[in-house]
């Protein structure tokens, strides 16, 4: 049953891809004209071009681009005096205006702005558009990947759980995943939270670990679907940790923030705002750490790959490719490490929230 679903899903994906490759033809010609220009570009212009590519890669997108020219549209959902729903193919990769119920929208740096019928975008002094940004709840590339990941995790772990019905030993994917589950329980949850309280946090810790790890690994694929290098995603994850910590905290936790026991009264008054600030800094640090690490990894990898094109020489291709390969291996380690650190620190915060008075 589970296998069938996955097979159907992959089949559906392939169909979507093959239908959308029609776009490739026109884009190829476009690419050719670009290639001609590439040789004529100065080094500085090439660097600028690569920087643009990297920046675009790091941003979310309204189309799902698998490789250059191969993409399929995703639904755009805007809240602008009512729901405005249309497919992102209306934008033609940001080249044309999209019209919906008499409103006009344009994509600028992967953001949707409301424009007039001519599509003029007015800029302020810092080159930021001053146009109105409608509330964008589109199923963007990252949202799409998050949905796929959620489905993937659900079916994988449901399958793992199901295998235990026929016997006490794990089967299939469970053989690989069970040790990780046990690792999170024995090495992360129990030492940081304690034997008494760890059980209620296991669901969150396991979900967050595998979610971040899988998404980090997915970011290493050549499709350029780095979800965890998105600030909004890491913020959402860290906020989950933050709210769970605050809502499950005991009296001891709050007394340590507002009325630190064991120090003079004056110090307690001084410490309270610092401790309170710490409560908010902790999730913020979680957000930035994951976001910055994953972004940095992608930027470094793509920059080194970009050097090949800056040098524009086949001699450069060899060494830089090897360097990229080595760094990719390092990034694979970082993918697991960042997931571990996020989970570890989350467990640490949970531990402080339920620590008993001693």
């Amino acid at each position, binding site marked *: 049953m589970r296998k069938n679903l996955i097979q159907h899903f992959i089949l559906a994906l392939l169909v979507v891809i093959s239908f959308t490759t029609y776009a490739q033809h026109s884009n190829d010609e476009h690419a050719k004209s670009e290639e001609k220009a590439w040789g004529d570009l100065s080094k500085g212009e090439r660097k600028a071009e690569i920087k643009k590519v990297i920046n675009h890669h790091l*941003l*979310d997108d309204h189309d799902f681009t698998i490789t250059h020219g191969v993409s399929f549209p995703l639904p755009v*959902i805007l809240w602008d005096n009512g729901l405005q729903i249309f497919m992102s193919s209306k934008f033609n990769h940001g080249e044309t205006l999209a019209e919906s119920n008499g409103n006009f929208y344009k994509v600028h740096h992967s*953001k949707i702005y409301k424009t007039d019928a001519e599509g003029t975008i007015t800029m302020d002094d810092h080159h*930021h558009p001053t146009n109105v940004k409608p*509330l*964008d*709840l*589109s*199923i*963007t590339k*990252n*949202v799409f990947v*998050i*949905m796929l990941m*959620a489905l993937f*995790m*659900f079916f994988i*772990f*449901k399958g*793992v*759980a*199901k295998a*235990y019905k026929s016997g*006490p*030993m794990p089967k299939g994917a*469970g053989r690989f995943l*069970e040790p990780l*589950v*046990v690792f999170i*329980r024995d090495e992360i949850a129990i030492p940081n939270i304690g034997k008494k309280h760890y*059980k209620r946090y*296991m*669901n*969150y810790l*396991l*979900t967050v670990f595998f*979610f971040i790890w899988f998404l980090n690994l997915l970011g290493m694929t050549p499709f350029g679907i780095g979800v965890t290098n*998105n*600030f*909004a*995603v890491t*913020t*959402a*994850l860290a*906020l*989950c940790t933050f709210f769970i910590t605050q809502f499950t905290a005991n009296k001891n936790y709050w007394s340590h923030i507002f009325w630190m026991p064991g120090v003079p009264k004056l110090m307690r008054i001084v410490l309270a705002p610092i401790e309170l600030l710490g409560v908010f800094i902790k999730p913020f640090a979680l957000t930035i750490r994951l976001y910055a690490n994953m972004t940095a990894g992608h930027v470094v990898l793509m920059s080194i790959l970009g050097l090949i094109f800056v040098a524009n020489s086949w001699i450069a291709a060899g060494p830089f490719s090897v360097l990229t390969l080595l760094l990719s291996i390092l990034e694979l380690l970082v993918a697991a490490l960042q997931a571990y650190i996020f989970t570890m620190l989350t467990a640490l915060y949970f531990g402080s929230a339920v620590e008993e008075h001693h």
Partner: protein
Amino acid sequence: METLISNFSVGLFFWQAAIFIILIFLLRKFAWGPILTAVNEREESIEEALKSAEEARLKLAELKTDNQALLNETRAERDAMLKEARTMKDGILAEAKANASIEGDKIIASARESIQQEKMAAITDLKNQVAVLSIEIAEKILKDELSSAEKQKALIDNVVKDIVLN
């Protein structure tokens, strides 16, 4: 920082939070719950099995020492029994020997006695026969001596001659 905030996608944040929270609850019900329960149960059963194996091992060791003690005891008992049997045998043998010699002596003595008796009877018998024979001889001699008047007269004369009145 400014670009970070200006690039912050509310939509992505919303979807991420929504999907993630739904995922947590779904996985809790369908995955983590059953997985953790299964792992816990297995660990407990392994622990129990190990514990019972250890207990069995201890019991076995105890049984072994018990067996050894029993064996030693039996061996000692056997040895004692053998020893007893040996002394008993010796005793019986000695007694039998003694009895046999006494009996033998007795038999010898009674045999000797009966021989003596037989001998005495034979002697007596012989004596009697000798006496009878002597009487018979004497009778024959007398008969012969006194067969005629002259002989009787001669005898009387002889006796009378001996009887000399002193």
